[in-house]
């Protein structure tokens, strides 16, 4: 068969695909129009269709917990973790446990921070790392921050080790990878709360539960990155290892893992960021620390104090991110011959010297040891004043916006989503699936949403869908133009990417502070938080996609006499579209997560039910709700990746 007939056949194929898609779409429209005359079984899932998944899951968990005695195993593991947590808690904030030598004076930790930052990248990072600790101490948040950090210090190494081992197993065994992959996919799209409920059942509440949920939550990216890194080791490097007579173990230990260093360290970075995000949220299951304080302050609407805590969390996030990234990209450098021990180990010596000095000084100057609440600074009063002034200033606007959005946008759209018969929604998704990826994709869409229908949470799920649809649409209206504008100049693009990257490191919780401040506790605030959170990846990938268009193509367009807008619409955007769609995909994922988190400021969707499941420790219900959210994400992910893949192939990008 010649190439030409191939493409022709392909064209024919996709034509029929699109036609089938439209046909199903028409059917969906018919179903929607005929809403009032449809039999009840097509409007809402009939009772016989709703399966008691929750009861089944509960039965399984009860079996695991009581009959198999898994509870003892988990409790034993939890006790081990608790012992470690006690050690770090004693060292970092002086909890009265073995080894009873803490707390380490804050100046010692801050000076180590300065040195590590300097060793990794130079004085800028040094100021960031050291400065963060100084800020925490001076603002009197030392204990809370250390409660948070003590969990990360224990959880992150567990996740890293576990993830690396799993990654190696998946790399060794194709079968293992095939089993692991779907589990990872679901795990990475389950909302945070879905993880907490089983942990509460098996472990209870408090720091150790927080640590364990953090470990579980942060493992998947480590597995992914280890696998990616091991796959990416150049063929010739491995062959050279073979020819040097390495055994399999030597090859893994000396050749593969060190060569995959960068990817593995990127995995470490992701683990730590996930840990921070989860630790903050774990306040919902009684994890003390910054997250719990923030939650209390937000619920009490103490804006100034919550901004202070927010800044601390943001600083910690940015610091941890920058440090681990610097570590990942740091390349080894040699010392000239005859360099003395002192020069070769200057950072180690400097760190040790500074710590020792601070330790000694702290014995004489109490303020260098600890800063109590009474001596701490606070900027909450001025922040409150500014916030009050600002809120009063823009109150007419926010009031109007709130009224407009609620009456004219949110409620009508929500009602429309709830009015749609479920059969019409399923047909609509099948149509989209068929148009994009043929029968297979249509079935995937049907399966995911069919299961949601069968879970019995259809109305709640539709409210989640409506929130996400509205939020992502608004985010797109803001994000795309911003991204296009940002991509026009190199410097502007670099700055915008830096801002987006930084915003992406913030734990999702942080985004609630400004919206609660502006809109109070209601639907608009939820949408606002989700829009903020979802716009970031859109801007980021729009810029990235547009910047990645090959220079020669743009030059060719210029030489063809294209104007700037012609180049944008005819060359740059079509080429960038697959990358932009990755942004859309991420944006949807982020909004799903955010919608669920935002539940505690008042929504009526799956998130609210999940909070209820959490407080009544109903594992079955919690997991069913979590999976419903995961399925939404996975369906969108499937559609977008399928679409992007065909598009990329068509553009010859892959």
């Amino acid at each position, binding site marked *: 068969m010649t190439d030409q007939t191939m493409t022709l056949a392909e064209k024919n194929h996709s034509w029929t695909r699109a036609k089938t898609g439209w046909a199903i779409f028409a059917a969906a429209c018919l179903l929607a129009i005929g809403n009032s005359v449809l039999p009840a079984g097509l409007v809402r899932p009939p009772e016989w269709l709703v399966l008691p998944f929750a009861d089944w899951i509960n039965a399984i968990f009860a079996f695991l917990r009581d009959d198999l005695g898994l509870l003892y195993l988990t409790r034993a593991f939890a006790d081990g973790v608790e012992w470690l947590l006690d050690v770090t808690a004693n060292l970092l904030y002086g909890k009265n446990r073995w080894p009873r030598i803490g707390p380490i004076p804050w100046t010692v930790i801050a000076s180590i921070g300065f040195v590590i930052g300097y060793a990794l990248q130079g004085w800028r990072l040094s100021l960031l790392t050291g400065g963060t600790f100084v800020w925490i101490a001076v603002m009197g948040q030392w204990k809370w921050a250390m409660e948070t950090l003590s969990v990360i210090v224990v959880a992150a190494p567990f996740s890293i080790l576990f993830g690396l081992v799993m990654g190696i197993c998946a790399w060794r065994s194709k079968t293992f990878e095939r089993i692991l992959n779907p589990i990872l996919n679901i795990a990475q799209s389950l909302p945070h709360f879905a993880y907490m409920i089983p942990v509460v059942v098996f472990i209870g509440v408090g720091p150790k539960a927080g640590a364990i949920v953090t470990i579980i939550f942060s493992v998947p990216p480590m597995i992914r990155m280890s696998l990616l890194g091991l796959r990416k080791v*150049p063929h*010739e*490097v491995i*062959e*050279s290892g*073979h*020819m*040097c*007579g*390495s*055994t399999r173990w*030597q090859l893994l230990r*000396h*050749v593969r893992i*060190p*060569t995959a*260093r960068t990817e593995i360290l990127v995995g470490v970075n992701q683990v730590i960021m996930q840990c921070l995000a989860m630790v903050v949220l774990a306040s919902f299951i009684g994890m003390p620390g910054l997250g719990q304080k923030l939650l209390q302050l937000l619920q009490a609407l103490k804006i100034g104090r919550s901004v202070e805590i927010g800044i601390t969390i943001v600083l910690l996030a940015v610091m941890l991110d920058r440090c681990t990234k610097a570590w990942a990209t740091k*390349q*080894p*450098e*040699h*010392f*000239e*011959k005859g360099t003395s021990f002192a020069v070769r180990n200057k950072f180690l010596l400097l760190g040790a010297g500074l710590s020792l000095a601070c330790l000694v000084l702290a014995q004489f100057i109490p303020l260098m040891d600890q800063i109590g609440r009474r001596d701490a600074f606070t900027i909450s009063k001025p922040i409150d004043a500014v916030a009050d002034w600002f809120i009063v200033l823009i109150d007419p606007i926010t009031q109007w916006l709130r009224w407009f959005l609620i009456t004219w946008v949110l409620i009508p759209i929500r009602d429309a989503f709830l009015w749609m018969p479920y059969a019409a929604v399923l047909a609509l998704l099948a149509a989209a699936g068929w148009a994009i990826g043929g029968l297979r994709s249509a079935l995937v869409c049907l399966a995911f949403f069919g299961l949601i229908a069968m879970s019995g949470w259809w109305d709640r799920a539709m409210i989640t869908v409506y929130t996400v649809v509205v939020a992502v649409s608004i985010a797109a209206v803001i994000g795309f133009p911003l991204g296009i504008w940002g991509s026009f100049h190199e410097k502007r693009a670099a700055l915008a990417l830096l801002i987006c990257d930084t915003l992406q490191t913030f734990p999702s919780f942080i985004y609630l502070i400004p919206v609660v401040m502006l809109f109070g506790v209601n639907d608009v605030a939820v949408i606002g938080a989700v829009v903020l959170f979802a716009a970031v990846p859109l801007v980021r990938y729009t810029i990235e996609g547009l910047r990645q268009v090959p220079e020669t193509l743009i030059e060719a367009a210029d030489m063809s006499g294209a104007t700037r807008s012609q180049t944008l619409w005819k060359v740059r955007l079509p080429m960038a579209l697959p990358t932009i769609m990755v942004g859309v995909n991420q944006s949807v994922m982020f909004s799903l997560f955010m919608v669920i988190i935002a539940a505690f400021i008042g929504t009526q969707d799956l998130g609210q039910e999940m909070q209820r499941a959490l407080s009544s420790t109903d594992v079955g219900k919690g997991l069913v709700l979590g999976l419903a959210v995961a399925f939404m994400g996975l369906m969108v992910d499937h559609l977008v990746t399928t679409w992007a893949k065909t598009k990329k192939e068509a553009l010859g990008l892959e």
Partner: protein
Amino acid sequence: MTAATPVISCKNVWKLFGANPEQYLKSLTGNPGFDEIRQAGYIAAVRDVSLEIAKGEMLVIMGLSGSGKSTFVRCLSRLIDITGGEVRVEGQNIGDMSEKELIDLRRNKMGMVFQSFGLLPHRTVLDNVAFPLEMRGQDRHERRARALEVIELVGLSGREDYFPRELSGGQQQRVGIARSLAIEPDIWFLDEPFSALDPLIRREMQDEFLRLQEMLGKTIVFITHDFDEALRLADRIAIMKDGVVEQCATPDQIVLNPATEYVAKFTEEIEKSRVVHAGVLAREVNGHSLTGTPIGEKQTISELARLLVNDSRDFLPVANTAGSLIGAMSRQEALDVLLGEAS
């Protein structure tokens, strides 16, 4: 093993890529072509290759990309398992070796240099070169001493503590060469070692390589896609196309008598007089009267050009390096090589 046993011998070596290559190979009858095999869904990287490499010989395998030359050299070291035939190294069938025996063989007998160097990015020059010694468990001081020795041999003294990315391409390949020599291998595989380098550096590295080989006298399999490089370095050249060796002979013979049209395409543009040696043109004396000083067998025709044009003898005596007469060279034949056949 006697002195006559070749160091490496391959008999009917096949390498097919595809779903079930062993079974497919068994079902083959006759000698199907490359395209025929592709129709069946298999890629034939090496087809029925039989070769022998003698001790101390430098065999250059020349072919364009996709000719199967890199796959073939990996069959010789069993980096790739072959589909059919057998490869013997010093008389031992390497296909039958256990993993442990194979590792032992590589730790003591084989060295390999790679096109994109294959250096470990996290190790210094010294640690890269010492890596094969570390693998076989030599102690730190011995390792260091030996590594420094080879580093000096390839002219990288003073760079021991550099990391690979701090070196230029040529220097990185010197590290690769040093590493492959660290265990004092008898057999040296070089897979397009200079292809990733600039032309000037490549030339310099070739000279360096010839100097090393003169000193070490290893058995060498050298892969290249550059015909000039092959002519410059080889004792024998094997020209590969679509997995088959089209011709395997000395450079002189290839230039003088290309076996196939494909080989002829390479030799067309080559100045033969720079390749052909007097010794190759020497015939039996057969009663010709030979007078005057003999010429050396290792001299190329282009080196003898002035003599050939000015001399009046019809036949010139040719002597080997020891000085004894080995035959007579027809001046006319030599002039034909120099100037092209008279049309």
